[in-house]
């Protein structure tokens, strides 16, 4: 049963990308900026469609190689939302020449389409191709500031690392094929060395996208080099989609517990957050700090996967959701500062609190949320994730998680420290923030506060989404 209708959002996005490329040809070069608007409207309308389809039973079901369940659509909403906001914030990013808007938007939409497929895929080949679609688009996006050596370098490292992990992934798929005779995710396969090695290699391939140690090394470099809206996108959408895929694999199909992978996943979780947090101490570039932070966040998310219980899965979803809000907020402020000062160095945050109190408070809230301090949304997410670890008796994971949270507070507060404790460099006035960026920050901060103070709708929504179809 093909059931292609379930992939409608993907087709819509891909079609949108093609449409944009087509329009690109027709538009006069002065009006390329409209393409951004077109793109975000596209993305937003798909998002709206998805929301509208939430209650529709016809939008649920499984196709040959894919599945449309509430779990997937929850993550799809996150991805579409992120894509929309990133496209919007691009409007306030000056370093990108308007004449490449078509390419940029098309790649962004293609990448989003890939992610939508990734989360729905129940077949490794489909997942692989989706991953590649995402990867190739994001390689280009990461290097989109063509004349910028840092952007080049980041893209190059990203690309090499990506290609290498694709090779590992497909090598793993070949083992998987050897062990099962197909590429579909099927349950009940006896654990053989062939299968386990295959799974581990596939895990490594996913780990690359989700920036899980030891496949995280590209992250800071690519993030630093990439245009900031792309960084925002990279730090959220692929990661969360990959976590969705990981959970499909290791939560349902190959329950980590029955394949002795829980220890490995837990170990990777600890390694990831430790590396992310402790390396972030010494960074002086805000984008890099946030990059390491996003590595660490992946570690927290991985706890939920490693635990593998229902609560863990819920925790991952909740955390993913709040992660979107807080990360978008943090990156948006970083972008605003970077746009204003031309540098993402920590020093450019000096005295921001005196220049624009509102923006600084917003940033502080997002950082607090990232550090998991109540009453921000991040706390609720962490609470859920750690509680899943405690519930399943994996104290060591919870302990590692909380210790890391404390450590992370240190570097998050380095930014807050610059904003509030340092005097502004010269008599610079209030920070000028573009309207789209401002909106993004506002949405993020409201989200961070709202879901911190009243997480009930989120939790309820997630609870409704978690029963995974096999």
């Amino acid at each position: 049963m093909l059931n292609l209708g379930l992939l409608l959002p993907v087709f819509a996005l891909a079609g949108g990308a093609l449409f944009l490329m087509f329009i690109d040809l027709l538009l006069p070069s002065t009006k390329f900026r409209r393409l951004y608007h077109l793109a975000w409207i596209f993305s937003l309308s798909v998002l709206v469609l998805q929301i509208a389809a939430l209650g529709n039973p016809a939008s649920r079901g499984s196709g040959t190689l894919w599945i449309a369940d509430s779990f997937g659509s929850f993550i799809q909403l996150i991805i579409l939302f992120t894509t929309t906001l990133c496209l919007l914030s691009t409007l306030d990013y000056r370093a990108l020449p308007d004449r490449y808007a078509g390419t940029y938007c098309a790649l962004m939409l293609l990448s989003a389409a890939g992610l939508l497929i990734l989360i729905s895929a129940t077949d490794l080949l489909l997942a692989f191709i989706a991953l590649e679609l995402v990867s190739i688009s994001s390689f280009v996006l990461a290097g989109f500031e063509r004349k910028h050596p840092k952007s080049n370098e980041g893209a190059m490292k990203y690309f090499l690392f990506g290609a290498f992990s694709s090779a590992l992934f497909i090598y793993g798929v070949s083992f998987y094929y050897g062990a099962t005779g197909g590429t579909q995710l099927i349950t009940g396969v006896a654990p053989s060395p062939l299968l386990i090695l295959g799974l581990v290699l596939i895990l490594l391939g996913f780990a690359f996208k989700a920036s899980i140690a030891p496949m995280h090394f590209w992250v800071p470099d690519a993030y630093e080099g990439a245009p900031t809206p792309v960084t925002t996108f990279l730090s959220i959408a692929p990661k969360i989609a990959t976590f969705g895929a990981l959970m499909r694999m290791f939560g349902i199909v190959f329950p980590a517990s029955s394949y002795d992978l829980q220890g490995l996943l837990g170990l990777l979780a600890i390694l990831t957050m430790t590396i992310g947090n402790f390396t972030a101490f010494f960074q002086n570039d805000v984008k890099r700090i946030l990059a390491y932070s996003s590595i660490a966040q992946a570690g927290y998310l991985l706890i939920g996967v490693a635990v593998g219980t229902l609560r863990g899965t819920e925790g991952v979803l909740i955390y993913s959701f709040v992660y979107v809000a807080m990360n978008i907020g943090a990156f948006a402020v970083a972008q605003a500062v970077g746009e204003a000062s031309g540098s993402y160095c920590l020093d450019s945050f000096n005295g921001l609190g005196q220049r624009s109190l509102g923006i600084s408070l917003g940033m502080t809230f997002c950082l607090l949320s990232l550090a998991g301090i109540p009453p921000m949304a991040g706390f609720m997410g962490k609470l859920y994730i750690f509680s899943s670890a405690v519930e399943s008796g994996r104290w060591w994971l919870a302990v590692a998680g909380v210790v890391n949270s404390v450590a992370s507070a240190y570097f998050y507060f380095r930014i807050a420290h610059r904003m509030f404790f340092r005097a502004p460099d010269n008599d610079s006035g209030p920070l000028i923030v573009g309207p789209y960026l401002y909106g993004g920050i506002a949405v993020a901060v409201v989200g961070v506060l709202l879901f911190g103070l009243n997480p009930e709708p989120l939790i309820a929504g997630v609870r409704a989404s978690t029963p995974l179809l096999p």
Partner: protein
Amino acid sequence: MIEHAYLIPLIPLAASFIILFGAKEDPHSPLPWVGIAAMFFSFCLAVSVFWDFAVGTLMLPYQHDWRWFSFANSVAGKSFIDSFKIGVYIDPPTAIVLVVVTLVSLMVQIYSLSYMHGDKRFKRYFAFVSFFTAAMLGLVASSNLLVTFMCWELMGVSSYLLIGFWFEREGPCEAQKKAFMTTKLGDSGLYLALLMIYAKVGSFQFPQMQQFFSSGYMPTTAATVIALGVLFGAIGKSAQFPLFIWLPDAMEGPTPGSALIHAATMVAAGIIVVAKLYFIFLAAPLALETAAWVGLATAFLAATMALVTYDIKRVLAFSTVSQLGFMMCALGVGGYTASLFHLTTHAFFKALLFLGAGSVIHAVHTNDMREMGGLSKKMPITFVTMLIGVLAISGFPFLSGYYSKDMILASVWHHNHTMFWILLFSALMTAFYMSRLLFLTFWGNDRDHDKFHHAHESPALITAPLAVLALFSVIAGYGLARDGFVEKIFPTPVLASASVAVEPPSRVSSPEARMPIESSEYSSPIAHHPVEEAELPHWLALSIIGLILGSMMLAFLFYRGPQFQTAAAIRAALAPLVTVLDRRWFLDDIFLWLVAVCDYIAAAMFWFDTNIVDRIFVDGWGLLMRIFSEVSNFIDWNFIDTAVDGFGGLSNDLGIGLRSLVVDGQVQQYLMYAAIAFSLAATLILAR
């Protein structure tokens, strides 16, 4: 009047606040009269109570309590609301002590009007004195041991304020601190005793406690520990060996203040509290014995030190210490009556002596007796009153000191002959050094013409109190000793029967108390020290008088001339001994050393805190990081020996270690870790 007894401490208290906050500081402020009036009122009240008792119209003890505060309490898993009471408890000793205290304080205040006149903190002084007296009166009259303790402490702080009254100079500052700290050290003993009492008895009301201890519920060991705690408190407050070091230094304060502190009030407080809690001591023979020996040692050591001192106030201070030793010793040997009797008489003549000394100092502006001499011509009234005081303290027949000291010696004689002889020797020394003081100051020729020339008799405000106190010094002994009245006032408590009928203890909190009493372990309800209505054998009594007169004679011989060569010669001959005495038996040095040690310990602790404990956190993180960095260094064979530069105090080994993974920023280094992950997966997973 007795129902208004609570006013006795409260009125001076109110007066002190009125004086303190009533007006701006003014060297000629009229406010001190408020204090005097208040004290007079209290005095009248106290006298009326005492009079009613003396003529038999009033039955003592009198007790009246108010609820003070209640708090939750729990015993053996049951909780209930307990309450502390605040109130007055006046028994005969209390009644007379109240009279003594108010009288002395009144005299001191009147005296001070002149003495302190023109001082820039004139008013404040009177506030302190009133407050001090109030605290003392509260201590005496309280029905609750906790309140007694509170007053005890308040007295400590007001003595602190009085001793350091002239705080611009270093001397008083050091002295006040020393006094406070030393007494505080003693207080801790009393504090612990309080805790133990509450743990055992469950009440701080004197009658309840007395009932409890008298009924023999108390194990001897516990009673002993409690009694020793109380004793330790008294040792601090009443300047007993070895904590008497603060008292000589405390002479830095204004002289009338010294008279108040060291004659009638603070130093007597220790004795009074021991006397008030005498029932505990009766249940603890060991503590009694300790008290006796401590008193003895104090009496003896202080007397020896007084022998060589030239500072007139210090001589009086040592004499006070010595006399307090007598009282403590008497308490220890069971001479309750004698002790309190001596306390009463001593209050008068010692206040007299201090005030007299103050008058002298006022006149010649020095404390050094070597610069005085021949003052009897210039200051006849002071001289006469001082003479009475000296004779009284020396035990000259028919003056007050004679009766009380005789009684003490008698009770000691019946207890232990060795103690008696030592104590007698101390008494002789007392006579000697007091006479020495008198001769040096008033006899002979002037040694310092300048000072002598300026000396003059003090005004009436000073001499009148001297006269009054002299009168009491003369009559108090006979007046009280007549017809055994003193036995009526200070009836020796005995364990067997509670002296007053009180309601049974509301609650007996200690679990042991509910257990059946095992006779061997608990003190028997029968008193260990049967009361001895004893007197000295006549031959002894007479020879004591003779000896005392002899030692006064000796002092005259030594110190009569203007240059007192004899004394100087003896002093030279006994140089080592004199040094020891001058250095106060090195006790001061020991305490200074202790203080230094404490400071050193404090500094060491602080070092420990900043360099060790603080680093638990900082390096705790650091250690965590180091562990991780070791791990990552193990992985990372491109180990980079990075110098650790502290950022924000947080050790950053881990960060450095992790960062060194990618420090080159070379993509193949990144790939390397992916490949390592692959190879580890390929081998480890399959090694199962």
